[in-house]
């Protein structure tokens, strides 16, 4: 379905983009920071976001799409209000991350990659969050939670409405 959101950035974001462009020798080099702004403004990297980024950086939509799909932090589908990245790489798995994943999936009634019906959480797996000495760990939005147990997960989720 064609997006109804106008395919351009807000004035406020455009000001921010101009600041970013000044930091780099080429327009294209601003692609990742601009994609982050697009994701924030449009909710995900959808058609409208691709249009807006393509226009501001003067790069084709196909090229921007190729870029956005390469990096795991850019999402093509809308996310929930809070995004949980649960690490299940080796250090976390050695200390029970797989059973914590099952617990989270049961508790939120979603599978990895899905969003809860109420839009409160999106659950994603992470390929190492770089906190291996405090495993198992998860990132909720911008916050790290370490030394996870089922009880700790219950406690953490309560904070996010």
């Amino acid at each position: 379905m064609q997006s109804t959101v106008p395919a351009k950035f807000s004035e406020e974001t455009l000001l921010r983009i101009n600041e970013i462009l000044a930091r780099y020798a080429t327009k294209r080099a601003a692609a990742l920071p601009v994609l982050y702004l697009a994701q924030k403004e449009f909710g995900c990297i959808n058609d409208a976001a691709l249009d807006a980024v393509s226009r501001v950086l003067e790069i084709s939509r196909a090229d921007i799409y190729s870029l956005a799909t390469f990096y795991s932090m850019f999402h093509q589908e809308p996310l929930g209000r809070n995004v949980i990245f649960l690490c299940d790489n080796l250090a976390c798995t050695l200390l029970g991350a797989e059973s914590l994943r099952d617990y989270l999936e049961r508790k939120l009634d979603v599978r990895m990659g899905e969003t809860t019906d109420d839009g409160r959480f999106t659950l994603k797996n992470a390929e190492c969050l770089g906190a291996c000495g405090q495993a198992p760990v998860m990132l909720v939005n911008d916050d790290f939670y370490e030394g996870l147990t089922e009880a700790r997960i219950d406690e953490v989720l309560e904070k996010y409405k």
Partner: protein
Amino acid sequence: MEKILLNRVHLKNSRSIEVYLAHEGYEGLKKALVMTPKEVIEEVKRANLRGRGGAGFPAAMKWGFAAADPNRPKYLLCNADEGEPGTCKDRQIMEGDPHELIEGMAIAGYAFGAEFGYIYLRAEYPRLVGVLETAIAEAGAKGFLGSKILGSDFNFTIRVHRGAGAYICGEETALIESIEGKRGQSRVKPPFPVNVGLFGKPTVVNNVETLSNVSHILRKGGKWFASIGSEKCPGTRIVSLSGHVNRPGYYELPMGVTFREVIYEHGGGIRGGKELKAFIPGGASASCLTPQHLDVKMDYDSVAAAGSMLGSSALMVMDETTCMVKVAERLMRFFVHESCGKCTPCREGTDWLLKLLQRIEAGEGKEKDIDLLREICDNISGKTFCPLGEGALGPVRGTLKYFEEEYREHLRLKGCPVKRKSRIGN
């Protein structure tokens, strides 16, 4: 042992420039600016500082190559894309003492003639963007960054560039492609980045831990640094210790400490009094070692002689209840996810290895699978565009070398023999 890199992280407000200045902060930069750039490189050469990102290349030599290139502008890229599973060392520096890194970058920039520096920060550390940007602003306000630093003719600006979740961007040429706004796929070398790097200009890529050593070397001298740790690889190392140990975490230790000391003294031994089964000495790419290697020294050459690599000094410890096929499978899933797709041996080969490991773990393996695993490894090795494909072989080759019998048991029993009693795979 006196800590070098982490000697300030436990202080109150350790991130602030006031605390940094009160503890000899920016003294190294002040010293560097009264020396010639060549003298600064000589001092780092005297220290024999080797890169802490994994390859161990001498930092001064890299700077020397870039300094000799007349092309301008020149760039310094700080590789803060700490993505190797098991590794969490650079985060401790950036989170606890960001000025240590910034001072090191300014000195490096002065030494080889760069005026611009970027910190390529991994996406999974979102809070650190603000931490680093605050520290950069503080340093600028005090005249340690910007134009005519401390009254000299040296100008240096640092920007934070947040990656977007791709392990391959830790490889220096992929990192450069990523900053240029492209998919993070490696470039062919030569030309090397020191001559043709970011935007086609001379570029040095150094790891966070490498750059963070520089202010200390300038402040206390290369000779002092060279006297710490091992002769061929002086200094300290921040070891990320994880897995089945009593005290996981990060430890700054002299190069050359043995694995036994790290696991049993600093890490407090194996959890629950269990036996050590294996350990991975240098992140996901490193081949595992076994209890017979506990007295191997943690330095690049000793670990290489033992058949593995020190890499990012991420030490992952596994007790007797761990299934080694599952370990190889889990790590291979990572490499499949992170292969950039540019070259066939890596893209197809890692996926094939994963499928074989999954079917062996699931009890559906065939007798020929073990030879096939080895054959695929041989066909990937030396034929990939960048080191990611080679790194993916470490977990398979290591587990096959020391635990082939466990693979065969999976085939005989048509299932995982340790699954029910292990933490991993439960």
